[in-house]
């Protein structure tokens, strides 16, 4: 079965290049050879092949692309002793489907070369590389007998297969091709008899004509532990076995060659799910990992806010497959509303994003739902101290699959156990959250892909304050109820008939419900019905020009009823407004309020010359509620200065409406207009090694027309009423982001990110800037994980972050407190807005994972220590009743999270 390699033949042809100035002085030379697997069915059927590949070799000698140029297969011809040439029969009628192309492509992509050089400088080249799959010669026929002296030779006895097996990987049950299986035994005279087979693409290996008796089996493959056993072969029977061979490591970063998406943005961070579910401190939640990326501020513990480049939590768009969703976290910010099991990747844009997105002046966060592959039944059960989740995926035929998932928290059980019975607060209905997802994929033909996703989320909490006066002297009721739920049904169709054209159409429908009541004193009731249509078509007219266009349409119909005091706006000190008069409430009720938002857009990708990519785009938004139209031109440029260096920049205009209450005639201003931001960024990327990347970006964001509180009045319908808010606010955000990423290599993966920024605002009617509520000057995060043998993984996350600005209250024992005699409460003496800062935050989180591998499933357990050195971080302050002293609100101390998970 084996043949020896022959001489390497090198046949240079004439140079054909565009614009080269230096001739090649040194050809690429194979440094690391990779043998291609000879497909077992081809060996069985005696089929040979020649596959010509086109390899792109970068300046480091690595193969960055491998494409098949041509391939041809031939059945072996045999010349018998009588000179008759015959073609051995092939079992398969589809002779070309033996897998030669795949085997050659995989081997070719793994080759390593000494790079080509042009006058001493390493340069990338493209070469053609041919793999010839050549069969070893058949054994010689037996010598002919002399006519008349011996009986004619008996006809060849056909081989009888009497031992067959399938090789599968332990834990995943996937078929393992290329395993060398040796069957052997020692005879009584000490001789060793043995045979060898190799498992094919289908994992199958066969042995023929084995003598009955006990045989030893040894199975070996690169990257797998050897497998040993003994089997009994019985005369007249076929021994059938299934062997599970264990991989050396089941770390999540074991991947084949991946093609990187073409980069068209200044900053896009794509996180693959398999890389981020074990980040320390994130409790396995992929969305929380975003907080460790450059440009993202640390949110206050329990808030679940996403704060990007000096923008507020409501200024960053959160999407699932491009569909708008109302919230990304369950209450408390501990868990996102979609589990990792159904997510494939997360795209995060801190700024300068494509015209595909809009209506947000901050960043964009888009989680991509996984596309199911109908290969086998898979599932998982995940149990942690917070919640339990289930996932099940089932193939339907060869082209479809369906999956269902669900999760339920049990914080209610934990809180009921720890809250004192004689405490001031009791739980009528303890906080609980649920979420569910249903996925379905159907690919009726290679160019058609349909996906249906249904997801929903529900959060509920009910509290009973035994002494409402402890909350406020004006409280009449102690019963607090809060609930949030939403669902979305998303149908998506992708049509990709060729590499030059693709089209994506998605339609979604859903409903959001937000309910908050505090007795009969306060209430906020919102029901929002939403329809969204997204269409995007992309044509590649030439290598240098691609045009994309689409439409983003959104229809909302809302019923809302609000009975609340006017909520404080950003910059009004947040909770630090002392004891507000909670009887000063406003009421508004709207039914059937419609808001139609539609935005056609167009975007081009232009490559005027090699290395430079320009992406201009234009988006036109219509806002029905505000009766406004906005035009957002954007431009991104990327230039590959050198093979390892890329410079980039972008400028873009984005518009955003205010928060929902800003256009309400009672709480806001019905004449309010759009807010606006111009994003500027410039940066560079350096990739000295394939697994190492440095990224630096300088950014500036100019904000104007911001919705800002005002004391002005206006005459409406003959009455003078408060204006409440206007578009007089403005602001600036500027800074620098550093990102050093070490992709998985030598068992280590991680990144370091540092953001230095300043975000300020100028409120309406003011001239002096103040710090933005969420300004964090320094944000440093180090995330690292190391994979050890025996499926252990150890990870850390260390963060050091500037404290958030805070508005100080003057609290001095020698200063007499001020009393509001009407309300009978003390009133704080408030300092300048955001003129103080909370103390520095720093915290170390540690996580250890261990996976046990069984034949048909895997079991994993993890222990996460959050705040491992028990740092006392201050999240805010509470005050004595007379504001003479403040007490720090401490963040959570060290606490463990234990979890277990089973996968099959």
């Amino acid at each position, binding site marked *: 079965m084996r043949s020896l390699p022959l001489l390497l*033949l090198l046949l240079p042809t004439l*140079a054909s290049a565009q614009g080269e100035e230096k001739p090649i002085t040194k050809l690429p030379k194979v440094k690391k050879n990779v043998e291609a697997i000879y497909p077992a069915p081809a060996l069985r059927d005696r089929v040979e092949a020649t596959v010509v590949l086109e390899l792109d070799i970068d300046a480091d000698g690595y193969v960055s692309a491998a494409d098949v140029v041509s391939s041809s297969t031939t059945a072996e011809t045999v010349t018998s002793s009588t000179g008759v040439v015959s073609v051995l029969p092939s079992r398969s009628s589809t002779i070309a489907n033996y897998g030669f192309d795949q085997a050659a492509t995989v081997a070719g992509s793994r080759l390593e070369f000494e790079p080509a050089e042009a006058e001493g400088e390493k340069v990338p080249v493209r070469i053609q590389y041919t793999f010839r799959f050549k069969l070893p010669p058949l054994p010689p026929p037996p010598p002919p007998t002399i006519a008349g002296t011996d009986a004619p030779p008996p006809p060849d006895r056909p081989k009888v297969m009497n031992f067959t097996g399938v090789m599968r990987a332990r834990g995943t049950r996937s078929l393992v091709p290329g395993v060398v299986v040796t069957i052997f035994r020692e005879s009584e005279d000490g001789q060793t008899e043995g045979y060898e087979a190799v498992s094919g693409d289908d994992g199958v290996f066969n042995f023929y004509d084995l003598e009955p008796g006990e045989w030893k089996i040894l199975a070996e493959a690169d*990257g797998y*532990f050897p497998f*040993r056993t003994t089997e009994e072969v019985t005369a007249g029977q076929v021994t059938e076995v299934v062997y599970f061979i264990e991989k050396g490591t089941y770390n999540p970063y074991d*991947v084949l060659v991946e093609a990187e998406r073409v980069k068209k943005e200044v900053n896009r961070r794509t996180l693959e799910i398999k890389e981020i579910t074990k980040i320390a401190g994130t409790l396995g939640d992929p969305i929380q990992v975003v907080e460790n990326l450059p440009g993202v501020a640390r949110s206050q513990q329990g808030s679940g806010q996403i704060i990007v480049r000096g923008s507020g939590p409501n200024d960053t768009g959160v999407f699932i497959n491009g569909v708008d969703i109302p919230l990304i976290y369950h209450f408390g910010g501990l868990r996102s509303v979609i589990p990792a099991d159904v997510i494939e990747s997360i795209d995060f844009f801190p700024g300068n994003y494509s015209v595909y997105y809009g209506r947000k002046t901050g960043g964009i966060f888009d989680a991509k739902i996984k596309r199911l592959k109908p290969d086998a039944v898979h599932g998982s059960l995940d149990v942690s101290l917070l919640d339990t989740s289930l996932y099940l995926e089932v193939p339907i035929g060869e082209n479809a699959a369906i999956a269902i998932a669900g999760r339920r928290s049990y914080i209610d059980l934990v809180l009921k156990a720890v809250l004192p019975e004689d405490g001031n607060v009791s739980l009528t209905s303890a906080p609980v959250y649920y979420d569910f997802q249903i996925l379905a994929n159907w690919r009726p033909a290679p160019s058609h892909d349909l996906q249906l996703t249904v997801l929903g989320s529900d959060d509920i909490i009910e509290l009973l304050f035994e002494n409402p006066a402890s909350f406020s002297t004006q409280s009449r009721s102690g019963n607090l109820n809060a609930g949030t739920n939403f669902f979305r049904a998303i149908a998506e169709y992708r049509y990709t008939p060729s590499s030059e054209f693709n089209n994506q159409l998605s339609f979604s429908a859903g409903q959001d419900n937000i309910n908050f009541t505090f007795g009969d004193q306060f209430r906020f009731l919102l029901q929002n019905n939403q329809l969204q249509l997204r269409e995007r078509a992309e044509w590649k007219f030439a290598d240098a020009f691609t045009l994309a266009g689409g439409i983003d349409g959104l229809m909302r119909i809302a019923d809302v009823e609000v009975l609340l005091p006017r909520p404080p706006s950003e910059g009004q000190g947040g909770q630090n407004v002392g004891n507000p008069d909670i009887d000063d409430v406003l009421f508004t009720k709207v039914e059937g309020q419609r808001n139609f938002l539609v935005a056609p857009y167009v975007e081009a990708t232009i490559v005027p010359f090699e290395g430079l990519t320009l992406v201009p785009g234009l988006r036109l938004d219509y806002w029905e509620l505000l009766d406004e139209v906005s035009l957002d031109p954007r431009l991104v440029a990327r230039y590959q200065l050198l093979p390892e260096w890329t410079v980039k920049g972008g400028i873009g205009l984005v518009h955003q409406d205010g928060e929902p209450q800003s256009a309400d005639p009672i709480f806001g201003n019905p004449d309010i207009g759009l807010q606006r931001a111009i994003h500027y960024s410039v940066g560079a990327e350096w990739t000295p090694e394939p697994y190492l990347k440095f990224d630096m970006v300088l950014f500036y964001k100019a904000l104007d027309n911001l919705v800002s509180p005002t004391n002005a009045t206006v005459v409406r319908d003959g009455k003078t009423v408060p204006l409440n808010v206007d578009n007089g606010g403005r602001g600036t955000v500027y800074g620098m982001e550093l990102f050093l990423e070490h992709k998985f290599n030598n068992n280590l993966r991680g990144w370091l990110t540092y953001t230095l920024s300043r975000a300020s605002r100028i409120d309406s009617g003011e001239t002096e800037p103040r710090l933005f509520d969420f300004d964090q000057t320094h944000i440093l995060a180090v995330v690292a994980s190391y994979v050890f043998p025996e499926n252990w993984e150890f990870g850390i996350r260390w963060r050091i972050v500037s404290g958030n600005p805070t508005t100080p209250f003057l609290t001095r024992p020698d200063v007499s407190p001020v009393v509001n005699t009407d309300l009978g409460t003390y009133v704080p003496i408030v300092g300048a807005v955001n003129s103080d800062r909370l103390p520095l935050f720093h915290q170390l989180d540690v996580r250890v994972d261990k996976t046990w591998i069984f034949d048909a499933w895997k079991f994993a357990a993890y222990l996460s220590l959050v705040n491992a050195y028990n740092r006392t971080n201050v999240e805010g302050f509470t005050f004595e009743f007379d504001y003479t002293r403040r007490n720090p609100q401490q963040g959570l101390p060290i606490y463990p999270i234990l979890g277990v998970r089973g996968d099959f």
Partner: protein
Amino acid sequence: MRTFLVLSVAMLVPTGAWAQEDTQELRLLKPAARQGFYVAGGLRNGALTISDENLGGLGFMTGFGFAARGGQMANDWIGFGLAINAGGGGNDVWGGGWGALSLELMLTPLPGEDFAIRGSVGVGGMGVARAKPEEETEKDPSGTAGALYTLGVSYDLFPWYEKDKYESGGFAFTGFLEGMLLPGDGLIAGGVMIGLEVTYWFGFNKNKLDIPPEAY
């Protein structure tokens, strides 16, 4: 990418080798006693000192403790595990008890030897009370919770292990010496413990060991 040349290379490929996965070189280990999963339990004796923010030092306390540990050596030099510790002690004036759940790390600086450096970090708590309740005052500390850190050394003695039989794992008597620190809220406790445990090492499956064929 600039294209300078189109080269045509022909190569004949030997059959039989698998090259599809980006696999790391798999290293089989020599059989040894201290391999694989472990479970251990034992007693410890030591001295502890506690310092209170109001009362200052509370003096040395002696006492006993126990631990239950479990984990695995990932390779021949590092291992991870979980440890549950608890104990109590006191002096003439004070008495106290502690407990902790910790993540444990073991390093074997000399692979093949049974000497290890081990440390842990976890969540711990400590309770303190006067030995004579009638002497209690309002300012007396009641206890604290926080991170518990330990660092020490250990040695596993395998009295029944036979090296020439290609065995992996076995029973061991483990002696150790370690320091512990629990910096809590208003209270800091620290001490030194010495103890003896019984440990069972499960060893590795023979498929993961570098042993001759006749050993299978």
